[in-house]
């Protein structure tokens, strides 16, 4: 099972995401922003970082990278895409996910081990979790405050499209404590926390994030 990870200029967590795919048992495939070649991967991860230096708005310039034209078309046909942190911002800028991520309330860059609740385990990226699972996964962002119109929030809530919610505390002022969402079809998921940084107890606060990567492998095998 080949899972791609896109490197944009300024990506930081691409190597961690590739590693997480390998640890989960998949074949990690590096993809490059300047090419539109998806190299026959069966799913793709947009990693965290500061693509294009976060110039203009986070993810705004990456959204027009050649690789994104291929990913947007594929995603509209059900291809699984996971956006982590900056990847989530890119998915919102691409309009593959609704809403936007804005400057954290309080203006601080927040770097902490964050308690989360799994709200939706029907996506290919979260199928290994149980609804209501409590996770601890690092967050590290300056612009992670999820904002959307009242109508969009109501739609996300009523359709069960909130994937992860912050619990105990809301680190950045996100509406409805939203830490991750999915599109209507369920194949595109964006999360602000970094599951690729919580796959081994040696280097992370938990192994809670690994299930994102084992989930996608199991989901694709089952197809």
């Amino acid at each position, binding site marked *: 099972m080949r899972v791609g990870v896109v490197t944009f200029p300024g990506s930081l967590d691409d190597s961690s995401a590739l590693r997480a795919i390998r640890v989960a048992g998949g074949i990690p495939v590096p993809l490059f922003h300047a090419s539109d070649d998806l190299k026959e991967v069966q799913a793709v991860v947009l990693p965290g970082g500061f693509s294009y230096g976060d110039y*203009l*708005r986070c993810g*705004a310039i990456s959204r*027009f990278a050649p690789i994104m034209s291929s990913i947007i078309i594929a995603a509209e046909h059900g291809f699984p895409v996971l956006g982590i942190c900056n990847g989530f911002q890119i998915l*919102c*800028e691409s309009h593959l996910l*609704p*809403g*936007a991520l*804005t*400057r*954290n*309330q*309080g*203006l601080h860059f927040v770097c902490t081990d964050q308690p989360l609740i799994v709200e939706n385990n029907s996506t290919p990226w979260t199928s290994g979790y149980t609804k209501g699972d409590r996770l601890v996964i690092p967050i590290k962002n300056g612009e992670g*405050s999820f*904002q*959307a*119109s009242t109508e969009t929030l109501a739609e996300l809530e009523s359709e069960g499209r909130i994937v992860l919610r912050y619990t105990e505390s809301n680190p950045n*002022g996100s509406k409805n404590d939203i830490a991750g969402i999915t599109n209507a079809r369920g194949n595109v998921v964006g999360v602000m926390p970094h599951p690729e940084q919580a796959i081994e107890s040696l280097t992370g606060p938990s192994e809670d994030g690994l299930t994102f990567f084992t989930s996608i492998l199991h989901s694709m095998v089952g197809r």
Partner: protein
Amino acid sequence: MATIVVEVMLKPEILDPQGQAVAAALPRLGFTFAKEVRQGKRFEISVDGTPTAEQLADIERAAQTLLSNPVIESFRVKVEG
């Protein structure tokens, strides 16, 4: 040469923590009149001669797709000089 200016502002319902921080700093300098501060962005796009209607329409599209994010921001286009 003329300059096409695009001003981008967060929509009123979107929280603007940067504007709030500026608003909180003003009274420390003795400027106590500000009820609220909103912070935005200004783009200056230089063109040869007077901008054509076609160029202005293009700028409008560029502002909608790249310079602003319509989910959270609104924009205004004007021509200067």
